[in-house]
């Protein structure tokens, strides 16, 4: 019985993230538009876009290879699995121990790896630009991420997200290391999701575009899958931040449906706040030149390292 409940919960989470992802995107866009005194597209617009793309025919370049066609599904799958392993409304879901924080980071890495590959498949100049810059960002974002993971893990004594969340809930104390880690994680999240100031998701035909440049040759259902994957990624990072730094309201292991509902409500709340803050941040800051991004990400790396060292200073294990 419990097992079944557990499986249901796990499945629910997988479905949940999949459903919520476009909504979050739409919400963020809406808020942005409003902050810019625009009407903006309706919140459900992303769903419409996806459906429209799915109905469209696919235009493939002559020399597109099998990798080009299978890539989107792999990318989507990796991102989805990663997102499904992050506690959203409940901790200790049945498969939560499948991958710890490091493994989740690595899963996103795999997604990025294939994204950069498919970007180079057709052999256009733009694809190359996108892939090479994406990998350059990643080369700094990933160690930053790992450093943040170290900080959190050393504090909580575990790299399992559920454990971390529970630790944070039970005996968290205000720590400078955590603050640094939070800032670092936000920076990494912005970079990974190609948001301003690192990249501008709303533009095309701009020499500074990175993510869009890689998917430039895609169309139809492939593009839809990729869009969904990137939406999932955004959701993933926001829920990651939420689960590590604001883990309140998460339903603990084996608790009844009621607490699950509470967890769900709090999760939706967190997403809303996150999306709103993101929009606010993006409207209030300008995009930076590509070669200033490394410094930006370097800050994240430094913050992570600093946070870890401060841990030792503040408390010697």
């Amino acid at each position: 019985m419990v097992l079944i409940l557990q499986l249901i919960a796990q499945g629910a989470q997988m479905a949940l993230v999949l459903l919520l992802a476009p909504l979050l995107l739409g919400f963020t866009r809406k808020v942005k538009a409003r902050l810019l005194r625009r009407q903006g597209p309706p919140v459900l617009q992303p769903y419409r876009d996806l459906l429209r793309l799915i109905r469209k025919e696919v235009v493939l370049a002559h020399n597109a290879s099998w990798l080009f066609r299978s890539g989107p599904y792999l990318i989507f799958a990796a991102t989805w699995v990663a997102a499904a392993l992050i506690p959203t409304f409940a901790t200790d879901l049945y498969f939560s121990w499948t991958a710890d924080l490091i493994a989740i980071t690595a899963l996103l890495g795999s997604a990025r790896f294939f994204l950069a590959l498919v970007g180079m498949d057709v052999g256009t100049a733009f694809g190359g630009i996108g892939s090479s810059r994406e990998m350059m960002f990643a080369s700094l974002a990933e160690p930053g991420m790992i450093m943040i993971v170290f900080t959190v893990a050393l504090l909580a004594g575990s790299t399992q997200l559920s454990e971390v969340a529970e630790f944070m809930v039970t005996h968290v104390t205000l720590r400078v290391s955590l603050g640094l880690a939070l800032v670092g994680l936000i920076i990494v999240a912005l970079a990974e999701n190609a948001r301003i100031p690192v990249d501008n998701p709303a533009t095309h035909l701009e020499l500074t575009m990175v993510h869009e440049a890689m998917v430039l040759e895609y169309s139809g259902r492939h593009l839809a899958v990729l869009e969904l994957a990137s939406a999932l990624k955004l959701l993933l990072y926001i829920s990651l931040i939420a689960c590590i730094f604001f883990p309140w309201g998460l339903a603990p292991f084996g608790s009844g449906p009621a607490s699950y509902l509470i967890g769900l409500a709090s999760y939706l709340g967190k997403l809303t706040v996150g999306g709103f803050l993101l929009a606010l941040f993006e409207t209030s800051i300008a995009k930076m030149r590509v070669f200033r991004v490394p410094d930006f990400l370097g800050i994240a790396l430094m913050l992570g390292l600093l946070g870890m060292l401060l841990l030792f200073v503040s408390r010697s294990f």
Partner: protein
Amino acid sequence: MNPAAGTLWSVAALLGLSVLAVAIARRPAATRITYAVCLAICIAVFIIAIAYLLGADRPVAALQLPVGLPWIGAHFRIDLLSAFFLAIVNLGGAAASLYALGYGEHEESPGRVLPFYPAFLAGMNLVVLADDAFTFLFAWEFMSLTSWALVIAHHEDAENRRAGYIYIVMASFGTLALLLAFGLLAGPSGSYAFADMRASSAAQPGLVLLLVLIGAGSKAGLVPLHVWLPLAHPAAPSHVSALMSGVMTKVAVYGFIRIVFDLNGPPAWWWSVVVIPLAGATCVLGVLSALMQHDLKRLLAYHTVENIGIIFIGLGLALAFSAHGMAAPAALALTASLFHVFNHSLFKSLLFFGAGAILTATHERDMEHLGGLIHRMPLTAFTFLAGCVAISALPPLNGFASEWLTFQAILLSPILPSWGLKLIVPAVGAMLALSAALAAGCFVKAFGVTFLGRARSSQAADAHETDGASLTAMFAFAVLCLLAGILPGFIIDGLAPVTEALVGGRMPVQASIPWLSIVPVAESRSSYNGLLVFIFIAISALLAAEAIHRLASQALRRGPAWDCGFPDLRPETQYTADSFAQPIRRVFGEMVFLAREHVDMPPPGDARPARIAVTLRDLVWDSIYLPIAGGTAYVADKLNYLQFLTIRQFLSVVFVALVGLLVVLMFVMLVWS
């Protein structure tokens, strides 16, 4: 029967085979015969080693032959450690031989490859078997010598000769360092048998460690002793490159472990302080150098340097933990390192096989002349992709599993008492993460430029898929990469007795954990399940594909690439390997390589093309090796005047020597009386 005896018989067979190969090298069948026999022997020894490693009752596997040092004889012994490395050596050897069954047919001068190849295999096996210092060094240097002969197999190219020269000098340098180390371990009485060394403690274990670090490190490719490696490994025929990169560097690691963990007594805490930062530097410098290459095989060779760094990080951690008597963490670190040894031997060989296949198909090693091969050689492309994913430490393949374990070991570092290590280890963790990310970038470049896009040369345009034997070898290793990635628990359990023997501890039994996930320390601390990750990804990918294909329109139209409407897509407009690396060069290059870009942009109306020239400097080479070479040349020049003195001047030298000695003698006698 005694496993050591069996292995020795196989080694003897290999040596005999190399003699036979000299005789039959001219025959057309020579290639097939040689490699087939090598394959059979390697498989046999592999089975012996695995049987010993996993067998419940391990027969005593030592024996002594009346050869080598007369009053000591040649000792041979198989223990758990050597069994593990025997397995690696012969697995790699078997795959390389299988691959060479196809690849070797394209060799234009088989007479310079066939005799040395079995001898090389024999040498590596002997190193692992050896149980006394003389036999060990004998085999070690024999291994270097035979591989040197293979490196200069294509000797018409001056580059290869230079590579071979630098290689043999560095190898002998390393051997001499090891020789000194053994001199210390053996002591003045000259007790060269490993058993005696274990029994007696070395005079200066610290010095021994440094010497071994130089000796084994120069063979394995630790910075700054790595310079020969990116020259020599690519120069050899590809199946030999695979052996050198995938297996011989592991034999060097074996030498390090054997001496430092087994013979040199209990470690001191500062050893790890020496080893770990060196390893971290090796990682980063290796991968950055790899990113700057556009020669495919050289890129792979530089990645060997990086992975050796990862392995030595694990070894350094194991030293740190066991120096403080923490057996379990030490076991974790050592397991991570040994596991990575195994993984790297798999995917590095696989990648070199792929490079060889490309070489035979296009006669090109330079990626700038390749591209679009995924259409011409789909199967090679698939296996190569698997290798790329594995070496980039991406789940669910094996590279990630071992790096994940290394990270777990790093996360245990706070329990170390010494503050130096507390601070160094996490910093090295950052370096490890950095190098992992850069490696991913590097292999996006390697695969993307080589296989994707459009062909940049006619050879690449009409390449052909490689032969069956090679493909079999490649697919076998690709599958092994996947299996090792999704079922790491079994390998960890297989390694447990080895770590128990070396650091007196073992990781918890993994096979019994539900769903076959791996738990290095405790369920609550961290766990990873490659199998489930793989299954989930597979399921959800299929699910998505299925769903989409149900819902979506099947309409599909082929057209020219859009590229934002940019017309006339010539292959030259693609990103090249160098241009792909340019952003990373901008970020790291100025500091590490003193990279300078000279842009020559003609003014409007000027017809000449715009040019960009990039200059990179290898600081290690320039700051260490050039001065040494220059110094030698300088001294040689100065001393050379002595060749041209007149007889009278030579007589004066004799005269001065005589008078000088007499004066010395006078003083001695006066002092004595």
